[in-house]
């Protein structure tokens, strides 16, 4: 294809820029509850985010990338003009990237996912034709935006109620925390391993049958649990600390759980959000190489690695500071609540990643926080801010779409 190298270069540059933006801004939200609950230090948060964002992106980012890359477009319609998809995908990356840059400068809460989906639907529907969009698929994505915060809220509610019943309401909460926290740790390890095994290892070249996957997931859950138990046993309890607030030492045990949950959250975020950057990039690369938007073409693993790398670089350069601000902005969040909210969100996001649904991690986390709040677990939740965050996607969709349409026609005119 003519200009193939140029297209690929542009796609990689724009994709990297987008991934960089995710690392610089979005990761902070994913780590907010963990840092805010003071269970992990800023340094630990950055180390965890670096490792697990990359692992999530590389190992479990494939499904959502597939959706963004080709799931929303009708390939039959585009067979004659594959370069239109190239322009459109480049335009989508540009529009989402620029919109995110403006929004974060202004302090508006926007979702990367919503801007990229809005952009792709926008260029395809207006630039190519209404029929070029797989509306059924887009419909299910939009539905998942409603379902994901609700689901994660429900999980958070139930998780927190279980923590209350099993541990906090007992007269010896420390004893029960020692007994049940490892169970939660196992749950975290098991869920994340399972999704990775089922959805992630294919493109790394490893394919196992279902029962082997379950066995490995259980085994890695147990290994993580043992690490957690060792960590809990090394904790030093100070009876003096319980004098003013009787749950200081119990919360220390939850701190260990929070740390492990933070890893899961970073993993989940990486697995879902990397697609926003590398999905369009992957589309451009595969069309440039093959000349068609093939429904069956496999995703080159290096593309996920590039996305993961972009996120990590953004995190290193800029995200650190944002995490610090977000972390200090949160007071009165204890690890027991932070854990319930974060695990609920991580689980929901990981499931969505496995199903190939691009959802907003931030919205999912907000839903989880509300779930804990409804269980009377939160000191104070500012409902007005919650409303702003949820409203923002209604604005983000058309803005992403309009920008993408403009860039689409611009690129079409240039080439």
């Amino acid at each position, binding site marked *: 294809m003519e200009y193939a190298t140029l297209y690929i270069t542009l796609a990689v540059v724009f994709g990297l820029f987008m991934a960089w933006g995710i690392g610089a*801004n*979005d990761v*902070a*939200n994913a780590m*907010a509850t963990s840092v*805010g609950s003071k269970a992990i230090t800023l340094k630990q948060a950055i180390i965890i985010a670096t490792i697990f964002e990359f692992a999530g992106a590389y190992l479990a980012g494939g499904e959502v990338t597939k959706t963004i890359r080709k799931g929303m477009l009708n390939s039959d319609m585009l067979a004659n003009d594959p370069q239109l998809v190239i322009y459109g995908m480049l335009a989508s990356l540009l529009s989402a990237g620029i919109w995110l840059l403006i*929004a*974060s400068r202004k*302090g*508006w*809460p*926007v979702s990367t996912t919503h801007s990229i989906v809005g952009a792709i639907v926008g260029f395809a529907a207006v630039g190519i034709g209404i029929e070029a969009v797989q509306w059924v698929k887009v419909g299910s994505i939009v539905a998942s935006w409603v379902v994901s915060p609700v689901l994660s809220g429900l999980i958070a509610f139930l998780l*927190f*109620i279980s923590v*209350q*019943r099993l541990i*906090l*309401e*007992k*007269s010896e909460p420390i004893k029960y925390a020692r007994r049940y926290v490892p169970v939660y740790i196992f749950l975290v390890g098991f869920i994340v391993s399972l999704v990775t095994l089922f959805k992630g290892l294919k493109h790394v070249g490893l394919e196992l049958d279902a029962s082997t996957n379950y066995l490995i997931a259980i085994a890695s859950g147990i290994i993580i649990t043992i690490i957690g138990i060792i960590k809990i046993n090394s904790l030093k309890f100070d009876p003096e600390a319980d004098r003013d*607030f*009787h*749950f200081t030492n119990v919360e220390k045990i939850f701190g260990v759980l929070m740390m492990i949950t933070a890893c899961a959250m970073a993993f989940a975020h990486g697995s879902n959000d990397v697609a926003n950057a590398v999905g369009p990039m992957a589309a451009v690369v595969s069309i440039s190489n093959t000349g068609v938007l093939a429904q069956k073409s496999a995703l080159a693993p290096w593309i996920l690695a590039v996305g993961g790398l972009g996120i990590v670089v953004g995190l290193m350069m800029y995200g650190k500071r*944002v*995490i610090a*601000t*977000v*972390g200090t*902005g*949160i*007071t*009165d*969040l*204890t690890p*027991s609540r932070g854990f319930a909210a974060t695990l609920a969100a991580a689980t929901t996001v990981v499931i969505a990643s496995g199903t190939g649904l691009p959802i907003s991690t*931030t919205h999912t*986390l*907000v839903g989880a*926080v*509300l779930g804990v*709040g409804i*269980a*009377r*677990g*939160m*000191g*104070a*939740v*500012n*409902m*007005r*801010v*919650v409303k*702003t*965050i949820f409203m923002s996607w209604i604005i983000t969709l058309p803005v992403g779409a309009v920008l993408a349409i403009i860039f689409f026609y611009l690129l079409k005119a240039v080439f």
Partner: protein
Amino acid sequence: MVGNVFSNIFGSSPVHPLQQHMGKVIACVSELSPYFDAVLAKDWTQAEQTYNNISSLEQQADVLKKELRLSLPKGIMLPVSRRDLLEVLTMQDKIANQAKDVAGLILGRKMEFPEQVASMLKNYVQRCIDASDQAKTTINELDELVETGFRGSEIDLVEKMIRKLDSIEHDTDKIQRDIRQVLYKIEKELPPVDAMFMYKIIEGIGEIADISQRVGSRLQLMLAR
């Protein structure tokens, strides 16, 4: 920053400021003990000094009250009902107001209490301070209640505290009746207006225990939500 918006959904919990306010109120009410020592000894310079303390502590509590109210706009999701919380705050504040009013009235009239009631009065004031102190102990459990989500053994603990508060208040009622009885026997020897004000002061001191008890009852309502 996008991130800042997210962290903004976590408001700061009103529990700690509420407890701080109660701490100030108790500091104010506790001054009544040295104040009555001075009054009964007819040491009016000392009494005035202590009154100034009471008055300034009451004002400080007032400032805390206003700050807390401003930090609780509508549309904030709390583990307890916003109305109950504001109600508790108002009542806590009334305790301090009541202490200041009683002390002010005594100082303004330079009231001299008959010997026969002096020691009873002293005990009475102390018990009323005890009631407020017990209300404070109860309010101090609110952060633990939030932590446990208002469930389990913490509830039993708080209910025990509320029962103790009720019994202290009951105690003050009894002392109040006893003082009135003594005063009734000697009231004819006292200047009538003075006697009238003495009854008023005795009632006013009792109010401190009453309001303290009501703080406990409101907390009980919070548990029941």
